[in-house]
């Protein structure tokens, strides 16, 4: 069964303290690994898609990387406004016209000033 696991469940950082979030996946024929940001009571906001091992993408203080079993979201010198839940999702090969995503439980990041 396809599965996505994220760790840690929660992370508290001081402003400027860099760290990484982990996403492990077991998906048949990966067709994309996605990172989203979710603020309380809101919908997931798209951040990145990674398609193949070794690929990296960056946006401001965030960098996402991908291996054959894991993805990491690196946060460099975070600010309080980076506080949110970060969701990882994977899309496998399911055939037909479906792009359904399998989500992890997320990492709740709190950045203190």
């Amino acid at each position, binding site marked *: 069964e396809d599965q996505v696991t994220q760790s840690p469940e929660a992370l508290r950082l001081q402003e400027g303290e860099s760290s990484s979030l982990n996403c492990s996946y077991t998906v048949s024929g990966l067709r994309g690994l996605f990172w*989203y940001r979710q603020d309380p*009571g809101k*919908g997931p906001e*798209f951040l990145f898609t990674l398609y193949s091992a070794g690929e990296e993408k960056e946006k401001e203080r965030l960098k996402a990387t991908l291996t054959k079993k894991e993805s990491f979201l690196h946060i460099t010198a975070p600010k309080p406004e980076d506080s949110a839940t970060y969701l990882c999702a994977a899309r496998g090969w399911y055939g037909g*016209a479906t*792009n359904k*995503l399998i989500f992890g*439980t*997320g990492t709740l990041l709190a950045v203190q000033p």
Partner: protein
Amino acid sequence: EPEVTQTPSHQVTQMGQEVILRCVPISNHLYFYWYRQILGQKVEFLVSFYNNEISEKSEIFDDQFSVERPDGSNFTLKIRSTKLEDSAMYFCASARDTEAFFGQGTRLTVV
């Protein structure tokens, strides 16, 4: 910037009543989805819709659920007879290809 719009933002309904959740996807997108998130739990796939028909549905999406794209812009999720356990945030998403963009959600509370 184009976005997915959902209405209402919050709906309270009596158990056994029918509800319709509405979504306006991004205009040039081809794939449409409903997901739900029970409080404190994962975002779960319900159904995908492509070329005017359901392309996949999860075990959650039983006979009580239905989806429609009645015109060129709206995409709806109907729950025929709501149960207490249907209480959740329901998210609509749309995609042109593989990258799905989500709406802000409808919080459904069944009492």
